[in-house]
């Protein structure tokens, strides 16, 4: 009652200040009342339907994420039309030749220096036979030869240990591609028959490209990410 009297009778700036303060309180009170009303009233549950529907026989089973394993043909066609492939590592630090090769001295007086030994991880293929040692210019030590790569699927987020089929391209140069050297950023082809992929035409996919993401000579294993 007193508050009302003072509010009504005060004039000037004081009156305005009191009025403003009262208005603020009124607005706050209204808001809290409305909030309480909302929780009292029964709300029609309009919950959103979950994504990723599965049939009844798969509901109780834990499955890998339902993201599509295959990319559409449309996506592929678009990529091919552009001419460039999007790779996870577009730019890689270039590797110098003296880092890649070590000079091997040969001959009776160890003066001949035409032989080189590769210091990075390589892939040689199943039917590989060395050239006769006398004529072998590039030595690929068997300790640095790898046949399998740990390939991660970017959408499924799981890693498989897949066999390497071949080296597609080494960004450091065509010579390294032909030697089979695998450094960071190299595109390799891996055997994916384990994943059970099928093209829209019905053919079984057994080889896919992957890009090497680590430095295999430092780690002792090849980690790659699948290019989908």
């Amino acid at each position: 009652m007193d508050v009302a009297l003072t509010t009504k009778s005060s004039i000037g700036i004081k009156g305005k200040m009191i009025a403003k303060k009262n208005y603020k309180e009124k607005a706050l009170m209204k808001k809290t009342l409305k909030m309480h009303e909302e929780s009292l009233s029964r709300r029609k549950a309009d919950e959103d339907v979950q994504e990723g529907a599965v049939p009844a026989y798969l509901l109780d089973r834990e499955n890998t994420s339902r993201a599509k394993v295959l990319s559409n043909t449309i996506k592929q066609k678009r990529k091919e039309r552009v001419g460039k492939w999007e790779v996870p590592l577009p730019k890689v630090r270039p590797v110098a030749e003296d880092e890649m090769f070590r000079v091997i001295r040969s001959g009776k007086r160890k003066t001949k220096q035409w032989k080189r030994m590769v210091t990075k991880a390589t892939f040689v293929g199943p039917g590989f036979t060395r050239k006769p040692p006398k004529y072998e210019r590039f030595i690929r030590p068997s300790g640095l030869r790898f046949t399998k790569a740990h390939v991660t699927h970017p959408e499924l987020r799981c890693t498989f240990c897949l066999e390497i089929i071949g080296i597609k391209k080494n960004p450091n140069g065509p010579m390294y591609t032909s030697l089979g050297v695998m450094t960071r950023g190299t595109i390799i082809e891996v055997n994916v028959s384990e994943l059970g992929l099928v093209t829209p035409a019905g053919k079984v996919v057994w080889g896919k490209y992957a890009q090497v993401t680590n430095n295999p000579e430092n780690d002792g294993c090849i980690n790659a990410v699948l290019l989908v």
Partner: protein
Amino acid sequence: METDGSESVICLLTDAEETPLGSAMYIPRNAGPLQLTNLVNTFLNNEEKLPYSFYVSDEELLVSVGTYMESNGVSVENVLKIVYRQQAVFRIRPVNRCSQTISGHVGEILCVSFSPDGKQLASGSGDTTVRLWDLNTETPMFTCRGHKDHVLAVAWSPDAKCLVSGDKDGKVCCWDPSKGELQGNPLSGHKKWINGIAWEPAHISYPSRRFVTCSKDGDARIWDFTLKKTLIVLSGHTQAVTCVKWGGDGTIYTGSQDSTIRMWEITQKGQGVLKHILTDHAGWVNSLGLSTEYVLRTGAFDHTRQQPSSDEEMKQIALERYIKAKGKVDSPERLVSGSDDFTIILWEPSISLQPKQKMVTTARLTGHQQLVNHVYFSPNGQWIASASFDKSVKLWDGVTGKFITAFRGHVNSVYQISWSADSRMLLSCSKDSTLKVWDIRTKSLKHDLPGHAAEVYAVDWSPDGEKVASGGADKVLKLWKG
């Protein structure tokens, strides 16, 4: 008689139940399946020439008798037993092309079902709608809204007049398929999602009124379509009930994740009573199949496509078809169950002194290397097909349970199978996004049907054999034709 150049061979023709047709007779060496068919037709005094297939010691006879005996080294002096089996009179054309890819669903298609007369198609999806499709124009017809969660199961009544669907919330909706409208409200009762729906067979009650649904909450409920309410609750399972089937003699079979199968009966007073518990499995029971399942599903509709006028006639035809499908011996239907323990069990009712007939394991069908997802008897009850997550489909003999052959070709788990109405072809859909049609006679792949962009969850062959519908995670419905 010398072995070379002898003209005839002693054979004894018997039918599937070992009753001989006449006595042992001399049959010329160059008699093949065609000549034997004529012989059987004349012996049985058939008015029309019915097709038969012949089996010698469980292997099908495809060449002439003489060549068979030479290649297998069977002595001419012994009587050769040839078992004849009637094949379906009609022949279904194998599907080999996708006639239409219809989009419409906004979510993954989870279940697909043709009506028993083959005229309508319903599909349930993750976008909470049930859609009805027009088969003549291959376009969408009705969109039935009413569910609030993914539609997991869809089932037509055997008289093709009612459609029922169950969703992930446990609600059941009844639809009028001619208008695509929801009849009444969504029926609640189940507390968790619905795994399967089965209708009462047409020969027991016509027009169809009652259906049973099974759910993850461990109960099976029997509902009345016209009253729109639960009649009986069959509780007893301790874990989710994964599949339910209503047998032709009125027994309801439910398979559950607690690895038991329960047989229920509805008494005269309208109560649901547990008859037996079958406990031979060691893992979740994923799927059940009955030898008369196809006939129960299609009711009075068959390949002759006749339209009987009255309800009584339909009931009578359904009853005749059911008796024929059971087999000549007065034995009730056989049950087959596929489970997570990688085995399948073929059950047969035991002939014991107990008044109630319990199912006893006839055979344990092992061989799968991963869980068995779906088991299905062929429409003539002769074969059992099983789909498993080990990428193979296996074929077993429907009476003895003996392994016949494995169909390999899929590169990922096989989800569901469907038979053609003449039991000559089998269709399987898989996680690798392809469908494959297998020929039973040659035991090999007939057609590969790629085209889906993602996993195929549901497949159905229409009972009139014209079309196949498939749907999956890529949200389009594909119709395939021969």
